[in-house]
């Protein structure tokens, strides 16, 4: 078995999970200018809702993914209405606080509904691990990679080709001008939150077989943040590449340097980027207005 490849594949699998969470953060940031500290908790909630449809309600896999996505879409709108909309003119710090409040609420709220024990989530793609160039890759990891790339493809098509996608992109670029085009800006922000939350749900559902379902899932938030900064805050490809960088870096560093400091490597990478290339890989265009 090839150690380097194995580390690489595992790092990539983790990276895709971070990337999915980071993607939601980036989307909300670019359309509403909000740094969402609740995204990790929304990923966790997605996993819980997914496991409910799959094992409690006994729906087939596809159907439970769809149902969870729908439910989470509504959660996203609700989240926006509660934690963002009333505060949209108040400055970013206070919105950060309210999203932190939501995440505190969710992290303990799931205990009330689902109990304290971590829940088992059957892999969506079962079967024995595949041998790939001397490394073993469980089908679920491939599923994560495929679904992330498929989502990215779908998202690109959606944003490029559909009217709704174009409207959402317009709002993300310039809210006032978008309004002048006849776009209902608040509604588009609703949609963006809904979509980001659906992304969170998908991240949760696909990560759950790897992580099991428990509030610990919410801890990927900090890695997702690291991914967004490494990739370039506000950039969609940046979120993906940043996620992969973080995932691969921490896996390799855990093997070659120290496994105890595994969580520190992601942040050291982040700090390195901030010092050397603060705009991240893909670079956010920042212009200070005077």
């Amino acid at each position, binding site marked *: 078995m090839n150690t380097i490849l194995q580390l690489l594949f595992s790092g990539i699998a983790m990276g895709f999970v971070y990337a999915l969470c980071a993607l939601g953060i980036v989307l909300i940031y670019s359309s509403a200018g909000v740094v969402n500290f609740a995204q990790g908790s929304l990923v966790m909630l997605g996993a819980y809702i997914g496991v409910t449809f799959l094992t409690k309600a006994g729906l087939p896999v596809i159907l439970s993914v769809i149902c969870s996505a729908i439910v989470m879409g509504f959660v996203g709108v609700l989240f926006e209405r*509660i934690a963002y909309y009333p505060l949209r003119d108040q400055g970013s*710090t206070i919105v950060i606080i*309210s999203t932190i409040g939501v995440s505190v609420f969710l992290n303990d709220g799931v205990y009330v509904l689902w109990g304290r024990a971590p829940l088992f989530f059957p892999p969506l793609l079962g079967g024995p691990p595949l041998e790939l160039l001397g490394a073993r890759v469980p089908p679920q990891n491939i599923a994560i990679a495929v679904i992330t790339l498929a989502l990215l493809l779908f998202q690109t098509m959606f944003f490029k080709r559909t009217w709704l996608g174009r409207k959402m992109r317009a709002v993300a670029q310039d809210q006032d001008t978008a309004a002048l085009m006849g776009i209902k800006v608040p509604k588009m922000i609703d949609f963006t939150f809904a979509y980001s939350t659906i992304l969170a749900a998908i991240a949760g559902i696909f990560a759950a077989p790897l992580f099991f379902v428990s509030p610990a899932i919410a801890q990927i938030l900090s890695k997702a943040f690291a991914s967004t900064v490494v990739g370039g805050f506000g950039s969609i490809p940046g979120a993906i590449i940043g996620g992969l960088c973080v995932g691969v870096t921490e896996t390799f560093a855990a093997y070659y340097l120290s496994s105890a400091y595994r969580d520190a490597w992601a*942040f050291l990478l982040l700090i390195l980027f901030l010092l050397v290339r603060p705009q991240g890989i893909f670079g956010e265009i920042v212009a200070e207005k005077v």
Partner: protein
Amino acid sequence: MQRTSFRKSIFYLVLIAIAVLIPQIVESRYYMSVLNLASIYLILAAGLNIYLGYTGMMGFTQVAFWGIGSYASALAMINLKMPFWTALPFAALFTGLIGFLLAIPSMRRLKRFYLSVTTIGFVEITRLILENWESLTKGADGLPGIPRPVLWGIKFNTPHKFYYISLFFVIILTAFSYLLKNSRVGLAMQAIREDELAAEVMGVNTFRYKVLAFTLSAVYGGVAGSLYAHFVGYISPNVYVFQEAVTVLCMVLIGGAGYVGGPVIGALLLTIVPEWLRFMHEYKALVYGVAVVLMAVYMPKGILGATEQIRTRIRQRVFGEKNAPVYPGQ
């Protein structure tokens, strides 16, 4: 002017007198220990207030400074055989130094959200170091048997006695916050909070004061850490986690960021109310989360901000004082 400041001094003196008398009135060691913990959180929050409330920067590092201060103080006492009265300043200075070294690159390079994210990383890295540097910190097992402070032969080993030490530092550091806020330096910090560029153009060396604010908050964290270590007598890395950072942040915001009294009210409230809410068991965190969101929506300037606004409105309505200071949000 003169009269109001006299009235204010009387008010503060009465407050301090009550605080000093509390151990005589309150017999329960439980309440006294809660008050001690509240004092420690208060100092943490007061430090964060300098950084967040006065200077307007968002961060979560306070909990890491708390941890560094705890270990610095405990190790100074255990390994270097320092008495408490030198270990505490040592811890404060050491933590301040770490804060200073961290602030120099961060304040030069990082803006806005990047700073918040980096500080999350700093909290995480600090905890990992405390947990894994076993030869120094004894790792995850923690450091037991941290000696209690002794002064003139009195051992401060009960919550009632220790309270006087906590109170001493609470008063000193709150007074310092007050003096700072009303000094040239504090004014410069507040100007940075309001408009960094305008402050810079008015001749305020914004970089310098941001570093100073960060360092001061670290010093407060160091003092709180030292007090915690010697109050509990045992420290372990699992105390200094991100959730605590959020708690301290909420204390500042709920009390009122930027107000000297904000951390006082916030820390007392958020340490004592959860004790009252013990009966709620697992629902407590839910209530907490909801409270934070409601707070953000309805009282973005905290309790003190809200009361000040109400007071102004009453003054305007009742006394028709057109020139009464008007607060934004009306």
